């Protein structure tokens, strides 16, 4: 089946440091979505990327879709304790639309 690599699995940062998680697909994607899940909570939709090389920003979060549409990244600038949680990608495409990555757990130390 489709392989969804999300790296790293876990990241611990000091508050104020930057953070990046990557989502890699073995096949070309039609689009990719990102979700955030707070500890004890449920996944919440953040954003979707559709175009090759697309970059979108939400305040301190920057989302990028690779040129080949096989990978994506989520970058957080100057992390805050409110950024704590697990970040998931969800693959788009006819056969991938229901698949989530394994997630990256972000811990932020004040």
């Amino acid at each position, binding site marked *: 089946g489709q392989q969804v690599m999300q790296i790293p699995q876990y990241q611990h940062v000091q508050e104020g440091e930057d953070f990046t998680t990557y989502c890699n697909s073995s096949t070309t994607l039609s689009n990719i979505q990102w979700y955030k899940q707070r500890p004890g909570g*449920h*996944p919440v939709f953040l954003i979707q990327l559709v175009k090759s090389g697309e970059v979108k920003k939400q305040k301190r979060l920057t989302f990028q879709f690779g040129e080949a549409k096989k990978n994506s990244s989520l970058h957080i600038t100057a992390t805050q304790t409110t950024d704590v949680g697990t970040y*998931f990608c969800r693959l788009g495409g006819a056969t991938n*639309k*229901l698949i989530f990555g394994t997630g990256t757990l972000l811990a932020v130390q004040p």
Partner: protein
Amino acid sequence: DAGITQSPRYKITETGRQVTLMCHQTWSHSYMFWYRQDLGHGLRLIYYSAAADITDKGEVPDGYVVSRSKTENFPLTLESATRSQTSVYFCASSESDRDFDGYTFGSGTRLTVV
């Protein structure tokens, strides 16, 4: 209130018992999904439904049964619960199968099978 609700929030059951997890959404979304979340496995799809009376298997359907007689409800039944089915279960809905629609998740049901 509008939204997607799951019940119960917590459930403890014994091995071999049948248990049903409920999911109700008020948006009349066509698509509904059941995922389980386990440490190290992320979110794995159990079953999904494109409309009332239309369901299909996901990645890990064994031991589960679903039905969708009404658009707003999508119950998940564990026919004979096993300890390996101890997990957090999330229901989600989506307006369409277009990739541009994000999923909206319920708050989850934490199920423990003893």
